């Protein structure tokens, strides 16, 4: 008896709540943080269709860019927007897209207005099923001449994902053994035993 009496109000409540929901959702996407939006606008204004804004969140701006213009965009980020060092270079493997993404997290020490900000610059390299690291199509231009701080990070991405950085002065292995002859280990098709 008690369940029957409780049910009708429980059904009735969502009906009354549903109308305000779409109204609350509408302003949310418009409300982009202004300072972060201005950073992404400057890059879009300069490069137009070559870049794509991945997201604009609080303190984080993501820019997706093709491999042919990544070097130019990085130079603009350094000279035009006062970013001065790269914190992290991460590879992410996407076998379903047949691509490997390389993500640069760029920050600034000298410009105090950018101290909280991280600019995420992402580019993609083609991926090969049977990689020969350094001798296949998985190549990207290096950013080492733009940001000196990527030197060791790019060496790590090369050995872990097989992405060769053209123009990098020192493309040796860093963390893996010198005689490593298997797949680059952080690719998705390198499986851990027993998993």
């Amino acid at each position, binding site marked *: 008896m008690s369940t029957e009496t409780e049910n009708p109000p429980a059904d009735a409540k969502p009906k009354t709540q549903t109308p305000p929901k779409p109204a609350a959702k509408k302003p949310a996407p418009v409300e982009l943080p202004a300072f972060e939006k201005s950073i992404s606008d400057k890059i879009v204004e300069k490069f137009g269709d070559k870049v794509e804004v991945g997201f604009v969140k609080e303190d984080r701006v993501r820019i997706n860019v093709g491999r042919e213009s990544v070097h130019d965009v990085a130079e603009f980020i350094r000279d035009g927007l006062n970013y001065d060092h790269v914190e992290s270079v*991460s590879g992410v493997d996407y076998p379903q897209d047949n691509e490997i993404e390389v993500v640069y997290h760029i920050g600034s020490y000298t410009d105090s207005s950018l*101290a*909280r900000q991280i600019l995420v610059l992402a580019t993609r390299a083609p991926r090969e099923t049977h990689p020969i690291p350094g001798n296949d199509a998985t190549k990207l231009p290096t950013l080492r001449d733009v940001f000196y701080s990527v030197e*060791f990070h790019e060496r790590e991405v090369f050995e872990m994902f097989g992405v060769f950085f053209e123009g990098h002065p020192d493309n*040796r292995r860093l*963390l893996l053994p010198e005689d490593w002859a298997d797949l680059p280990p*952080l690719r998705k098709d390198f499986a851990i035993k027993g998993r």
Partner: protein
Amino acid sequence: MTVELPPGLALQKVDERIMTLNVGPQHPGSGHMRIIVQIDGDYIVACDPDPGYVHRGEEKMAEYRNYITNIPHLERPVIHDSCNVLYPYVLGAEELLGIEVPERAKYVRVIASELNRCIYIMYWLAIYGIFLGHSTMFMWPAGDRELLIDLMEKMTGARVTHAHFVPGGVRNDLPPNFEDVCLRQVNYFEKRIKEYAAVFYDNPILISRTRDTGILSRQDAIRYGTTGSVLRASGVDYDLRVKEPYDVYDELDVHTNVMKEGDSYARSRIPWLDMMESCNIIRQALQKMPKSGSVRVKLKPNPKTKGLESVYKRVESGRGSLGCYIVSDAKTEPYRVKLSVPSFRNLIALPNLLRGEKLGNMPSVYWSLNYWPVEADR
């Protein structure tokens, strides 16, 4: 009979005058790390750091475990700074899972991470002392850090590997009477580390060995992307606890220690000043912390997001800014976890600092970089 060694294992011969030396990778209490140096007489002409002897594939392992079971192994790179190394991962996972952390848990986390910073720096200082042949400076920090280790044991139940931070708060609430014990221990600890000045930091022998060695200019510190004490010893005022406050650091008064010299002495003094600052922060946090309340919210099993979502969080660890980049594809396991560790970022400065130094100065320059090999290798 000659055996051909794989490339990288054979030492390169340059000419009759220049000798190539292998330093490491044996473990003198400082982690496995090899530095290949070329010396001309007593002077280093080139240096090639060779990390990777403790590479354990933490990032690969993280892709096979769900968000909560990643916690015990992701703190392994720096077990004596285990709260701080987990911190960015936990913050990132919270954003992906859509969790709001209770106020009390935020304060407990700040106290735990500041205690852990002191524990880390004391270990680092002990090794720095013994690298320079100063046995007292090995014994004192190694003994005094037990005070804080006991505190962490009371708080978390484990002496070194705490696994205390979880997405949604901390694992357990503080034990009864913890605030009083903590305040007493921290006050004594601060009094104790101030005594190190007389025996170590004002010691003319230390000053003569570390002053003006391995100078890193402000421009280079920024260009190399160094972080933490290395950056602040070169005159850059940058501390994430002030610049990008996480949890409750914006409610606390944090002072950033900056020195302008950029030499080994400045780099070794900054962590010591940081410990005193940590004591200040702990006292403030103990005062402002809510006296009761929940410290953990229930986890939602899956990320709230649909499709690919990425998050990059960073905290100020004992060595500098530590970032964690998590890519989620809305499954229970992260798609990719990348730790951007300060040791790895500071390593790039080593070849440039050692060039032109005397070989005898190598230990002091190397260890003043606040470098922890296990963390750099992950």
